[in-house]
């Protein structure tokens, strides 16, 4: 068990590799109740969340879920989140565990001009992620329902959305905490494999998804993380001006790194280009599916550039690749 933003969470239930493969090949279930649930309601919610995030909520229809970034005036990412359009007056944000208070306060101090209410239910809401090719079948068996990718359904008090952090089919189930056991036990009984934090990290890294506090930690912009697709430029939002001017400059971008020699990559591992240290890995691990070391690093290098990584004093060969790795 490890401490994760104040939550005690298992690194693994059985083993990282077998849990990882379960999600890619059958179905796994994650207890991600540490994630936040902040509800924003009111007549100005669309205007307000469009101003707060990189996405224009005018483009959202009821039931749409959208991944986007919340920036400060400098364009630096405070957190990434999925925004759920429950109805035109009610939205849900799911910030990362370590960012809940910061995001809640950020929403509050920026909401003066808007007719909205902000309710943080993180402490009394659970979130379970059911992920893998078998997940839709299990969801059907469990709740007699189905959800499309990035769409949500509300079933009584519970929100089921076609979202996740693994790149697989599946859903996330969000609801009041007293119902978690019912869902967890039922899905385990149906054959879903419990997945710990270790495989959660390898699964997201194979898909090139960002980890808050690691791939961005306060001074990186959406452009630098190479997530320009989450920006709708045609609307006003906090950080837009900073991004507009950065767009015209040359800057390092978070790049995929594939190790060609054998080995495992770790965050912090030094990256060399032409025998000069140019960066460090923000994320690094071994891809259980590729059986190769993979990582992410802020680099100003073209795809296919040859680099080396220093591991225990030795230089290992690697190259810059496009993400996802898988």
């Amino acid at each position, binding site marked *: 068990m490890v401490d994760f933003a104040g939550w005690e969470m298992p690194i693994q239930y059985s083993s*990282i*590799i*077998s849990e990882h493969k379960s999600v890619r090949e059958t179905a796994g279930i994650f207890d991600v109740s540490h994630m936040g649930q902040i509800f924003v309601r009111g007549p100005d919610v669309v205007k307000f969340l469009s101003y707060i995030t990189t996405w224009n909520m005018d483009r959202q229809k009821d039931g749409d879920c959208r991944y986007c970034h919340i920036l400060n005036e400098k364009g630096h990412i405070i957190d990434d989140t999925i925004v759920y359009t429950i109805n035109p007056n009610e939205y849900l944000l799911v910030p990362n565990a370590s960012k809940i208070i910061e995001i809640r306060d950020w929403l509050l101090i920026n909401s003066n001009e808007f007719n909205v209410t902000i309710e943080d239910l993180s402490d009394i809401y659970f979130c379970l992620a059911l992920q893998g090719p078998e997940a839709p079948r299990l969801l059907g068996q469990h709740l007699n329902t189905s959800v499309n990718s990035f769409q949500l359904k509300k079933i009584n008090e519970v929100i089921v959305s076609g979202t996740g952090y693994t790149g697989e089919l599946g859903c996330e189930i969000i609801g009041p905490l007293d119902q978690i056991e019912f869902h967890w036990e039922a899905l385990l009984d149906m054959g879903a494999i419990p997945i710990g934090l270790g495989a959660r990290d390898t699964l997201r890294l194979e898909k090139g998804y960002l980890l808050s506090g690691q791939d961005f930690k306060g001074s990186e912009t959406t452009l630098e993380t190479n997530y320009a697709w989450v920006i709708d430029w045609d609307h006003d939002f906090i950080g837009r001006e900073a991004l507009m001017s950065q767009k015209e400059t040359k800057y390092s971008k978070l790049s995929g790194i594939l190790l060609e020699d054998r*080995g*495992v990559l*770790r965050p912090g591992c030094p990256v060399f280009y032409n025998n000069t240290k140019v960066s460090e890995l923000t994320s690094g*691990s*071994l891809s259980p599916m590729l059986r190769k070391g993979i990582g992410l690093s802020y680099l100003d290098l073209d795809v296919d550039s040859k680099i080396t990584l220093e591991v*225990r004093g030795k230089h290992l060969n690697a190259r810059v690749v496009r993400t996802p790795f898988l």
Partner: protein
Amino acid sequence: MSEVPDNLSYTKDHEWMLVDDGGKVRVGITDHAQDALSDVVFVELPEIGTKFSEGDAMAVAESVKAASDIYAPVSGEIVEVNDKLEESPELINESPYEVGWMVVIMPDNKLENTLDSESYRKLID
């Protein structure tokens, strides 16, 4: 319960040793150690001919989450390494005492300060 075969010697760093008729020492990590490491996904072994003093880090076993040094249980020279681990590091998990052995050392001296199976069992209890 971890397996601790009676015919082997052990270190407190969770390595096992088997001395052959010629005095060479085969070394691996124990069942308890492989279980604690979980899936071994990469093993870095020394070159044949390298000399180590007792307690030197001579190899590395890595799981997804962590890299662990493997220490030389005795001073001497590496005379054999298990090349199979390069392709199949998981052999350490599957068969820590047989197919998953790591190196063979020609020791400078006789083995000293080792634990027998009884004492090692107590250590990991």
